[in-house]
């Protein structure tokens, strides 16, 4: 069943068509084992309260599966501009890809944005649901359209940033 449907789908289709101008690649870091028959059986058992999710593993796997579906659906809405590359941390290729973008490969699921208008780096860790789904869409639109919303004075001051700075934002879905 589609996650993005009805009015949301219609709204996004129109918005993407009007505003997307350049390719946005979403590199999606996950594990193939999150969707294995064993993982799905565990998820079903947890839902039926038959097992406890002591390690958070069931929650993480579910978050990764849903994130993968959301990204795939977004790419279907705007196939000319949104590409999803799924990278499997269970494989050495996935591990190497994570390393190449500076991820430890432990914080999953993770989305790494790639786009010509992104000078620095931008990532999302976790399931982008609720309010954060809106942020994901905003980020895609901002990147693809190249729309800089910052004030000229801010951009001027930012030229003083000549060493690595990370901005970590903790959010919750609602």
């Amino acid at each position, binding site marked *: 069943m589609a996650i993005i449907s009805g009015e949301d789908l219609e709204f996004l289709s129109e918005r993407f068509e009007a505003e997307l101008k350049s390719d946005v690649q979403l590199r999606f870091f996950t594990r193939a084992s999150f969707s294995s028959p064993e993982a799905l059986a565990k998820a079903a058992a947890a839902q039926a309260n038959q097992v406890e999710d002591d390690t958070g593993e069931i929650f993480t796997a579910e978050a990764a599966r849903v994130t993968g579906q959301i990204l795939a659906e977004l790419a279907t809405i705007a196939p000319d501009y949104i590409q999803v590359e799924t990278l499997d941390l269970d494989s050495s290729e996935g591990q190497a890809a994570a390393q190449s973008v500076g991820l430890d490969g432990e914080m999953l699921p993770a989305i790494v944005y790639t786009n010509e208008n992104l*000078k620095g780096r931008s*990532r999302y*860790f976790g399931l982008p649901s609720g309010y954060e789904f809106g942020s994901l869409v905003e980020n895609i639109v901002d*990147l693809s359209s190249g729309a800089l919303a910052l004030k000229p004075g*801010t951009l001027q001051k930012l030229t003083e940033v000549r060493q*690595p700075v*990370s*901005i*970590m*934002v903790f959010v919750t879905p609602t």
Partner: protein
Amino acid sequence: MRLANQFAMSNENITAEIVEANEFTDLASSYYVYGVPKIIVKSVAKSAEFEGAQPEHIFLQNILKVI
């Protein structure tokens, strides 16, 4: 968090990382995240933090604090 991404778009030295706190509880507790959004700005030597959906100039102030 749109602003963090906007800052990353504008400067090659800036990395924006949005972290879903319910999912990465260990990391969230290590930064004493009790309310969201909570923003941690870090350079190699310094860090600053603030809470809430703050305007652009507060983000900027905190970035300038750590450089």
